[in-house]
C-alpha cells in the first residue's frame, strides 16, 4: 500500500455558474433574503414543487474520479478544454476543496500551475527567487543553498539585481521555471507550463522534467502537447467531461483521444456563454472552408484550405495574437501559425468581432486526417483561450503532386519540390523521365 503516491476516490467538484461564479454583491444576498421565500412560495404552485434555480446553476467539473498513481510514476493527463483537468490538479494540490470524495497524497507536493507565481514586478530577480521559493514551499535555507544553481539555470546572472519588471518575458519565464524546477517535491503536479516560452525554453523545461522523472519522483502532468506527453509519460489519463474516460499506455490513450476528436466537424460554434468566463477575447466559431467560404470536411491535396477563426474582443487588449496548431491524425504537430506572422508578436486589439483566416496552401499537406487547435494568447505571458482539436478535416489526393499515380506516399506533407535531372553521360544525352524518385510505399 505504501507504494501509492496519489489515491483519489470518487472525487467530485461542483461549481456554481452564472452570477454566483464571480462574486456576490451584498445587495444580491440581501435581495435573496427577500425573494427566496417568495420563490419558494411560487414553487409550491408548480406541479413538482421544486425550487429550480439551485439545481440549474451548478456544474460538476469533476465527478466520480478515482485512480491511483504509484510512487515514481509519470502520468500525463489530457482532455479537451473544460474537461476538468485543471480542476483535478487544483483539487490534488489543495487549492480548492472537492465537493465530494477524497484523495490521499503521500509525500511533499509541489504544484506548478503557472510559472513565476507571486513574482512581483517591483522586486529584483533575487528577491523574487526568495519570495517565489517560499510561496512554492521551500525553506529559506534551501533557497539559499540552491540560489546560484537557480540563477545559472535561468541564465539571468547579470540581471539578478534588476527588478523583474525590466526583464524580457523570456527571462521572466526562465527564472520562474528555474525556481520551480529546483523545488524537490516527492510529487510534482504540473499544468501546461510548457505552453509558453520559446522553443529553446520549452526544450529546457522538457529536459528538466525528464530528469525529475528519472529521479524517481511522482509526476502528474497536464498538457495539450501530445509530443511532450509521448516523450515524458509512459502512462496517460484522459479526462472528459469531469470523468476519467480512459487510462492506459500513452500511445493507446492518445489514439483514442484523437479518434474521439475525429467525431468533430469542420465547424465549431462556441456555446454562447462558456461557464460564465470573462476573458478579454472570446472564441465564437471556427470553420474549415474552401475559397468560397463554404464549409468543407474533405479537401483535395492541391487545393487551398482556409481555417476561419471568429472571436470577440470583449475588452481592449494591449498585446494578443490568434493562432492555430495543425495536428496530423496520429497527433504529430505539423505546424503552428499565428495571425501576426511572420513576426508572431502580439498586437493591440480593440473591442469588436473579428475573423482571422489562415490559408493553408494547396500542395502542402499529404492525405490524411488533420485536427486544428486554435488559441489566443498574450505572447510569453498568458493564454487567453485554447480549444484543442476543435475542428477536423481530411485531405485526399487530387490532381496535385503524385495525383497521377496514387502511390500512397508517406509523410505529413506533400510539397511540390524542385527537381533537376541531368544525364551525366558525356554526350549530355536527353533527360530521362524520373518519376520514381520517391522511395514510397
Amino acid at each position, binding site marked *: 500500500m505504501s507504494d501509492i503516491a496519489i489515491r483519489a476516490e470518487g472525487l467530485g467538484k461542483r*461549481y*456554481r455558474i452564472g452570477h454566483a*461564479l*464571480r*462574486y*456576490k*454583491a*451584498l*445587495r444580491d*444576498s440581501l435581495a435573496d433574503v427577500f425573494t427566496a421565500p417568495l420563490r419558494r412560495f411560487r414553487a409550491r404552485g408548480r406541479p413538482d414543487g421544486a425550487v429550480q434555480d439551485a439545481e440549474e446553476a451548478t456544474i460538476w467539473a469533476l465527478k466520480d474520479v478515482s485512480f491511483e498513481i504509484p510512487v515514481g510514476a509519470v502520468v500525463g493527463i489530457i482532455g479537451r478544454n473544460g474537461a476538468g483537468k*485543471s480542476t483535478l490538479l*487544483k*483539487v*490534488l*494540490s*489543495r*487549492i*480548492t*476543496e*472537492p*465537493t*465530494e*470524495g*477524497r*484523495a*490521499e*497524497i503521500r509525500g511533499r*507536493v509541489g*504544484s506548478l*500551475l*503557472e510559472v513565476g*507565481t*507571486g513574482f*512581483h514586478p*517591483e*522586486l529584483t530577480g533575487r*528577491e523574487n527567487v*526568495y*519570495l517565489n521559493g*517560499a*510561496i*512554492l*514551499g521551500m*525553506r*529559506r535555507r534551501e533557497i539559499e543553498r540552491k540560489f546560484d544553481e537557480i540563477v545559472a539555470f535561468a541564465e539571468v546572472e547579470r540581471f539578478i539585481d534588476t527588478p523583474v519588471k525590466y526583464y524580457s518575458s523570456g527571462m521572466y519565464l526562465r527564472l520562474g521555471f528555474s525556481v520551480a524546477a529546483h523545488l524537490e517535491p516527492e510529487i510534482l503536479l504540473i499544468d501546461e507550463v510548457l505552453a509558453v516560452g520559446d522553443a529553446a525554453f520549452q526544450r529546457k523545461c522538457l529536459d528538466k522534467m525528464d530528469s525529475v522523472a528519472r529521479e524517481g519522483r511522482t509526476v502528474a502532468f497536464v498538457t495539450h502537447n501530445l509530443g511532450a506527453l509521448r516523450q515524458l509519460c509512459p502512462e496517460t489519463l484522459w479526462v472528459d467531461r469531469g470523468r476519467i474516460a480512459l487510462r492506459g499506455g500513452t500511445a493507446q490513450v492518445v489514439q483514442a483521444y484523437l479518434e474521439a476528436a475525429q467525431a468533430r466537424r469542420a465547424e465549431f460554434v462556441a456555446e454562447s456563454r462558456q461557464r460564465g468566463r470573462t*476573458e478579454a477575447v472570446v472564441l465564437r466559431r471556427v470553420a474549415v472552408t474552401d475559397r468560397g467560404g463554404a464549409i468543407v470536411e474533405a479537401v483535395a491535396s492541391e487545393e487551398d484550405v482556409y481555417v476561419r477563426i471568429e472571436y470577440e474582443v470583449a475588452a481592449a487588449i494591449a498585446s494578443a495574437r490568434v493562432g492555430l496548431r495543425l495536428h496530423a491524425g496520429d497527433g504529430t504537430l505539423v505546424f503552428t501559425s499565428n495571425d501576426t506572422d511572420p513576426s508572431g508578436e502580439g498586437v493591440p486589439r480593440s473591442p469588436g468581432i473579428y475573423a482571422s483566416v489562415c490559408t493553408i496552401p494547396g500542395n502542402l499537406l499529404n492525405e490524411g486526417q488533420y485536427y486544428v487547435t486554435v488559441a489566443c494568447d498574450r505572447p510569453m505571458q*498568458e*493564454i487567453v483561450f485554447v480549444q484543442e482539436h476543435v475542428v477536423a478535416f481530411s485531405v485526399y489526393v487530387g490532381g496535385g503532386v503524385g495525383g497521377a499515380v496514387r502511390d500512397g506516399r508517406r509523410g505529413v506533407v506533400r510539397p511540390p519540390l524542385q527537381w533537376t535531372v541531368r544525364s551525366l553521360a558525356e554526350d549530355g544525352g536527353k533527360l530521362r523521365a524520373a518519376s520514381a524518385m520517391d522511395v514510397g510505399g
Partner: protein
Amino acid sequence: MIAPSRGWWSVNLGELWAYRELIYFLTWRDIKVRYKQTAIGVAWAILQPLAMMVVFTIFFGRLARVPSDGVPYPLFAYVGLLPWQLFSRTITESTNSLVTDQRLITRVYFPRVIVPIAATMAAVVDFLVASALLGGLMTYYRVVPGATVLWLPVFVLLMLVTALGVGFWLSALNVEYRDVAYAVPFLNQFWLFLTPVVYPTSVVPEAWRVLYGLNPMVGVVEGFRWALLGVGQGPSPAVAGSAVVAVLLFASGLVWFRRRERTFVDAIGSGGR
C-alpha cells in the same frame, strides 16, 4: 488527505506554524514594495502619525481645547495615534489582501489566513518605526514612564488580537462581498470617533463607559496611555470588556475565515485562466 472539510473547528494551527516563513516573506514583500518607489521610503511610517498629531494638536488641542488628562496634547495624541494607525492600516490592507493576491491563491496552496496576517505584520513594522519617534517625544516633554510600562506588552498583544480579528472578518467577507472594500474607509473614520484618540475617555459619561468599552480599540488606546503616560485608569472594567470583545472577534474571525477559505478560490475565480 484531501476531503470536503466539515465542522466548525478546522483551525489548524500546526499547519500555520509550518508556513511561518511564508508569513515572513509576504510581510517582507509588502514592505519592500510599498516603499520601493517612494522618495523618502520608511520615513512615511513616521510622517503620517506625525502629521496627524500636528493637525490634531492644532484643531483639537489648541482651538477646541479638548482636555488631555494633564499630558501635553501632542504626546497625548501621538500615543493614541500609534495603535490607531496600526489598526486602521491593518483593516484597510487586510480587507483587500485576498483579492490583491488572487493569482497566488488560485495557483498555490498555503493556509490562506497567512495573507491577512502578513498584511497585519507589515503594519506592525510601520508601528515599530513610528514608535521610535515616541521615544523622542517623551524625552522632549520629559515624561518618564512608571512601572505601568511593564503592562505595555499586554496592550500591544491586545492591539494585535483586535487588528487580526477584524482583519480576518473583513478579508474573508470581502472575497464574497466586494462592498466591504467600499465600506472600510467609512468604517475607519467612524471607528476613529468611537476611539479615544483625540479625546480622553474621561469625557465619556461614567454610565456609558462599559458600553463604550465594547469597542476593543478603547481598551487598547486607554492601555497605551496608562502604560506609557500613567494617565487614565489602566486595567478597568471597560478595558476588560475590550479584551473580551477582542478575543471573541479574533476567535470568531479565525474560525469564520478557516471555514470560508475553502471556497475562496471558487469565489475569486481563476484569475485569468
